[in-house]
């Protein structure tokens, strides 16, 4: 199945802009389902971006991050063709990772 992570990393000059969209329910634990039972909290806690062996961005998320979360940031020191490794883990210990080429 396709990875849960969609990444777009585009370098112009020394600055690489990164956008990521992750398929995840991000349940807060406050919402009830149709039968009236609480849907347990299930959300990504940590999202890490690594490039050339170095962390370039680390997100620590709580329950207030939207479903199918999105984040955008930029960093220096990478160039076209470098690999950008993206990985997340959630509060249930589930995780996923993918590697994208900077275009």
């Amino acid at each position, binding site marked *: 199945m396709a990875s849960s992570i969609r990444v777009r990393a585009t370098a112009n000059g020394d600055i690489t802009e990164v956008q990521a969209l992750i398929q995840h329910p991000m349940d807060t634990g*406050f919402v009830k389902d149709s039968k009236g039972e609480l849907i347990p909290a299930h959300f990504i806690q940590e999202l890490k971006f690594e490039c050339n062996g170095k962390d370039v*961005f680390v997100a*620590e998320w*709580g329950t*207030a*991050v*939207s479903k199918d*979360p999105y984040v955008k940031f930029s960093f220096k*020191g990478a160039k076209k063709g470098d690999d950008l490794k993206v990985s997340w883990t959630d*509060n249930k210990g589930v995780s996923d990772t993918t590697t994208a080429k900077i275009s």
Partner: protein
Amino acid sequence: MHKPPLATRRLILQGAASVALLGLGNLPFAAPARAAANDKYPEEAFKQKGEADAIKALYGRNAEPSDKVKLDAPEIAENGGVVPISVTTTLDKVTSISFFVAENPNALAASYRIPDGTMASVANRLKMAKTTNVTAIVEADGKLYSATKEVKVTVGGCGG
């Protein structure tokens, strides 16, 4: 629901860490407060209800408003579940950026570690329970700067 062993071990470690931190709490802050930029998930901070407690748990001190922190958030959110919020700053030596939604069940929404070489600006989409203040805090060179904006949130439609 049983927590997998790995998470439990990590919790214990954090428990120890936060106890230590609390212990520090009442000491005069002579020692530089432990910057939030450690590698642990700030479990304690995410648990806090109020914004002040969350900021204290995360950074251990208060922020002062600064116009160098540009917070961009809609005036009226098109939907409380997906509110596009972003912050950018001209301050340098930024090591951490965090977002707080004052009257959410837990005020701390997201916290980002900004390593050296990464630009000090973040865009994300947050959930807001109701109309309230959104605050962005930037940790630059050990000091905290903040910007706050009210975002109106309500449901849509005529309610059926």
